[in-house]
């Protein structure tokens, strides 16, 4: 069962390093008290802009990896895309900047008890948390095939270590600048069949998640989705991040920062999702 991470803390952490990876930025943050309890799929929330900022709301990012660093203690790593004023500010910070961090937040990817065949499907920066998940899956003896899609090659996030973890990586790009030209869903059915996939995990843009879920539903393959809804708080108090989900036979507006971001694909009432 997915469960909300109840170990959330609010703390101040130092930005230990920031470096460009394609069009993304790889950030390493000191996060004492947060990194320790983080599970794959959890996210954190950051305050941005500094004291006199006009930006009040939290910015949330999936935890790419959390680990114990020999010299800096508990750290978390993020993969950040520039997509607005807050992320612009964040990636313009330099090492040493102090950041207010809240986390770990949200649900995590449920892990199968048995060593099954798994496909991870990531779009853009959505691939980041899936590689950490793959690590855990491999440790349980699963076979893991990765399908990583993006608009163009510079937006493909498939780090070397990540690639080593999984059994295979298939890259797709919309413009064909890397891997196969097309969408992740163009290659997914074939891989499902070839590798006898038992379970799918996906993370990326909502349109991709929906397309993947269509395939999973049609083949009755369990599908764990990490969704992305606009969030103002990330901690469950604002009710802005809701997604229509099936609860019994009713559609309910459910907070994706509390009952998500990782959700059973079949629970999502896709037809009611606003576009």
């Amino acid at each position, binding site marked *: 069962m997915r469960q909300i991470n109840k170990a959330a803390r609010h703390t101040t952490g130092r930005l230990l390093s920031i470096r460009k990876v394609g069009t993304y930025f790889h950030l390493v943050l000191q996060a004492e008290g947060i990194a320790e309890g983080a599970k794959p799929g959890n996210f954190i929330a950051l*305050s941005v802009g500094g004291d006199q900022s006009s930006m009040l709301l*939290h910015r949330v990012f999936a935890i790419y990896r959390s680990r114990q660093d020999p010299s800096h203690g508990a750290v978390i790593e993020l993969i950040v895309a520039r997509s607005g004023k807050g992320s612009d500010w964040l990636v313009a910070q330099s090492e040493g900047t102090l950041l207010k961090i809240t986390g770990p937040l949200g649900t995590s990817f449920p892990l199968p008890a048995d060593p099954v065949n798994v496909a991870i499907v990531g779009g853009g920066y959505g691939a980041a948390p899936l590689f950490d998940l793959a690590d855990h899956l491999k440790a349980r003896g699963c076979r893991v095939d990765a399908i990583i899609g993006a608009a163009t090659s510079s937006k493909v996030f498939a780090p070397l270590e990540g690639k080593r973890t999984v059994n295979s990586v298939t890259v797709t790009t919309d413009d064909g600048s890397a891997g196969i030209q097309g969408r992740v869903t163009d290659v997914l059915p074939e891989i499902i069949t070839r590798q006898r996939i038992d379970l799918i995990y996906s993370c990326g843009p909502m349109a991709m998640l929906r397309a993947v879920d269509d395939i999973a539903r049609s083949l009755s393959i369990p599908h764990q989705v990490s969704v992305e809804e606009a969030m*103002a708080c990330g901690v469950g*108090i604002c*009710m*802005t991040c*809701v997604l229509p989900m099936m609860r019994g036979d009713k559609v309910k507006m459910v907070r994706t920062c509390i009952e998500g971001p990782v959700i059973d694909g079949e629970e999502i009432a896709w037809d009611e999702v*606003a576009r």
Partner: protein
Amino acid sequence: MTLDFSTTIAGVRFKNPIFTASGCAASGKELSQFFPLKELGAVVTKSIMLKARSGRPTPRMAETPSGMLNSIGLQGPGIDAFIEEDLAWLQTQSCDVIVSIAGETVDEYGALARRLRGQRGIKAIEVNISCPNVANRGQVFSCDPVTARAAIEAVRINLGGEFPIIAKLSPDVTDIVAIAREVIEAGADGLALINTLLGMVINPKTLRPHLAGKTGGLSGPAIRPVAVRAIFQVRERFPSVAIVGMGGVVHGEDALELVAAGADAVSIGTASFGNPMSVIEIRDRLSTLIQDHGFTRFSDAVGVAHER
């Protein structure tokens, strides 16, 4: 010198004057992982309606300069589930609770009040007659003296004097003092000032309203000068009514501004979205500032800006 940081709202004592703002702390549980709720003066719960309500479609929010728009549309489980689950849980937290209610009709306000009668663990009822996120703007009861009065009267009659009534008003009116007068005459023991301002954001890419509900409520520091003004005006005319102030409080200094203008307590809303510890940090800072100004009782600072 120690500070008496308690405050009294319509005869009810709260251990300190920092409350959550309705709709900005859900029903308390979510914040309780960051600090014990009993650290607060009171938890003000999200406005609850008679029936379960799924609220508006997304997008429900837009960040604006020093503020945000929301159009949640009073999503909630309905009063019965609220009492059984949320209120019951809050009672286990030994924190003081103010329940916020919102009706679609005058009768619904009455029915909500009846339903709360006899409930334990409630210190006061906040009556939200000012939510801008309803399809029919005519439903903003506090924009009209007649409906404002009617909603408060319905609550008063059905509550039977059991809890103090705090009427929450909208700043989107020509004369907030006139509306305050109506609800006080109708039996409100206190006023909550202010709810959000009606606003809109156009998405620069689609050139369409960004919120699915088109308009939303503007909150955050952007509106603080409007809140201070509203509190000051109402306090000037009604020196003895209780006022719970809110609107853009992010720092202890901001809370002090509202207190000096006349607020007996201060609710924190939007600030919590960027920092879940805001309420505690603001409480502690306010306490320090008040002592630095030489006050030994919080209540002596209330409305001090009116002195010459």
